[in-house]
């Protein structure tokens, strides 16, 4: 393997127009096996599974709209999407980073157990569903805009930050059933939300010092990716949503 810094590595460009996902991903796997570290995919039109199961520290810039399951089972790569992403982005991801300069579809980060996902704009339904954490792995999802219903459902770990930056001061978030079934991890929500929009398994609390540190770090990374000012974002108040019970369904059964 070459020891050169990543930034000095040449960039390999693939024109994805007209390529079936199987061809595209085969090419991607091949050039990564050859040691390429910087890759640009041009004219991506909905090809699925880009970055699936890749486990090297490569950087992939995607121009266009990648299809479902972007970065599924992924373990290490950094993917930057210059456009919108579709459903299942970061599905069961282990580690790595996905940065989306646009919107993302449903089930963002489904069952992820590590890695980071930054979405500049809005996301669809059930974002962050069943994210877990394990030892030093902890998935981080930061969403600049709003989310649809069931955001953070079943969360079993990780950090989900919902910034609502496209909502004006008096507009409420739209999502209902926020954090339903959540039993670990934490959600930080910026902006207004009604009590009825929250799942019955979660409680709310004001931020403590350590929460501020978490926000400072990840909102900082978010701001750096998309050219915002961290302090401006953090100026507005956040609430912390946490699971009230580690075992929300522990008392259902007769033995």
């Amino acid at each position, binding site marked *: 393997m070459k020891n050169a810094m990543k930034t000095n590595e040449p960039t390999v460009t693939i024109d994805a127009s007209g390529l079936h996902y199987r061809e595209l991903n085969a090419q991607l796997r091949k050039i990564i096996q050859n040691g390429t570290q910087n890759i640009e995919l041009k004219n991506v039109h909905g090809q699925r599974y880009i970055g699936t199961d890749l486990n090297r520290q490569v950087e992939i810039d995607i121009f266009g709209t990648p299809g479902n399951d972007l970065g599924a089972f992924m373990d290490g790569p950094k993917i930057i999407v210059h456009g919108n992403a579709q459903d*299942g982005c970061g599905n069961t991801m282990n580690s790595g980073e996905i940065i989306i300069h646009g919107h993302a579809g449903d089930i963002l980060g*489904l069952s992820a157990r590590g890695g980071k996902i930054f979405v500049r704009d809005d996301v669809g339904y059930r974002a962050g569903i069943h994210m877990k954490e394990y030892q030093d792995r902890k998935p981080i999802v930061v969403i600049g805009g709003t989310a649809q219903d069931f955001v953070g459902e079943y969360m079993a770990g990780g950090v989900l930050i919902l910034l609502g930056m496209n909502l004006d001061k008096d507009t409420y978030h739209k999502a209902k059933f926020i954090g339903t079934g959540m039993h670990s991890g934490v959600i930080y929500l910026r902006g207004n939300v009604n009590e009825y929009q929250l799942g019955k398994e979660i409680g709310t609390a004001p931020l403590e010092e350590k929460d501020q540190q978490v926000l400072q770090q990840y909102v900082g990374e978010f701001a750096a990716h998309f050219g915002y000012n961290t302090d401006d974002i953090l100026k507005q108040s956040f609430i912390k949503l946490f699971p009230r019970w580690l075992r929300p369904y522990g008392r259902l059964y*007769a*033995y």
Partner: protein
Amino acid sequence: MKTYLPTKFVVERDPERCIQCQVCVNQCSFDVHSYDTRDNVLACRQENCVGCHRCVIFCPTGALTIRQNPLDYRQNSNWRPEYIEDIIKQAETGGVLLTGMGDDKGQRIYWDHLVLNASQVTNPSIDPLREPMELTTYLGRKPDRVELDADLKSLKTELAPQVKIEVPVMFAAMSYGAVSLNVHESLARAATEMGTLWNTGEGGLHPKLFKYGENTIVQVASGRFGVHAEYLDVAKIVEIKIGQGAKPGIGGHLPGEKVSAEVSMTRMIPQGTDALSPAPQHDIYSIEDLAQLIYALKEATNYTKPISVKIAAVHNSAAIASGMVRAGADIIVLDGLRGATGAAPKVIRDNVGIPIELALASVDSRLREEGIRNRASIVVSGGIRNSGDVTKAIALGADAIYIGTAALIALGCTVCQQCHTGKCAWGICTTDLALTKRVNPDIGARRLANLLRGWSLEIKDILGGLGVNALESLRGNRLHLRGINLNNTELEILGVRMAGS
């Protein structure tokens, strides 16, 4: 609250035989036997007894007998004791009744109404002791047509990945956490020795067992526990779990108490937290979505492994199976009404789903009618008890069979249905380290391999009697079956004729 539940079992100790060695005290994990050190007597809380026979088998002098409590309610065909006691339990706890193992209600078991044929006079039977007899089975998608290169004398058609098994019986999905690591190791080693496969279930694969990967099916279920690159890489087959016969349509819930340090490592979740498997896979709401996960896994494994999809047998299984095959499943698994579980709500276990025999027959028929039967192997499970059931399932159209309960019985299970308590005295369905060491993987693997060897010999005997020398000749050949005591609709669905016709 005083419980109104009567004692289920009576424990009798023969004082003539008992030597007060306290083996029973040490063996019982349900706190039935205890030793009073002050008075030097063995005491017994028989109300705790679940009838698992652990103490009976291990009592060195045969001093113990366990009988069902003869307490009789007034005879009532509607209000049978089970239903009375269920109500008592719920009145006292206000909860969902949990249970373990498979449906025990005895809804018609069709295997008992099907009989096999044998050769007499008009064609010779074969003696498997002296003639070759083939049980080898290949799992995976078969091509629609095969092209040969005449010059090179080789196959031109590119085959989808095939997995060869030497016995058509595999070990069903039982997750680490539900069962112990020693059980997993026993299954893995027996599968390796016998040239078949075992299935991790949805709780991940312990790194210690990676070396048995060539004989391992790994599951990807709604909780995605322990699913990571190496897990997918070591496996021979990857199985997507949609449902299970004991609890179709509902999720799973491994209580935090069972998530020990080792289970936590394998599932990749923190120790002591509940492991919740949501009822649906939230990336699958349609056949198209199923195709998406199938191809995600094919991409992840670079098209080198068959992808299997397991569903519970339900009313419209045949149509669903057709969709699954068209979605790209290389193997479809049907788990019937009598399929077992480590824990399920009793009302679901006993009332939801259909018997595996009917599901198998209707799925096999449907795929044949649509001309796509070759595109996927069919594996069935759900209460398969012996080689007779296996052979009948093959004749009805199955490619292979999964056994779960039968495998656990080989390891010592007595089907006491207390899996959900986590206290299994046989050390099978528990993660309590004091209990799990009761299954010794050396002995466990031997017992399981012995069972498969016994069944293989019996299947060969049946095939020989039928006058065929390969399991392939029996597969889906329903003319070798006849029905007994079945009505016309049942015969029609099973696609078999009445015995005598």
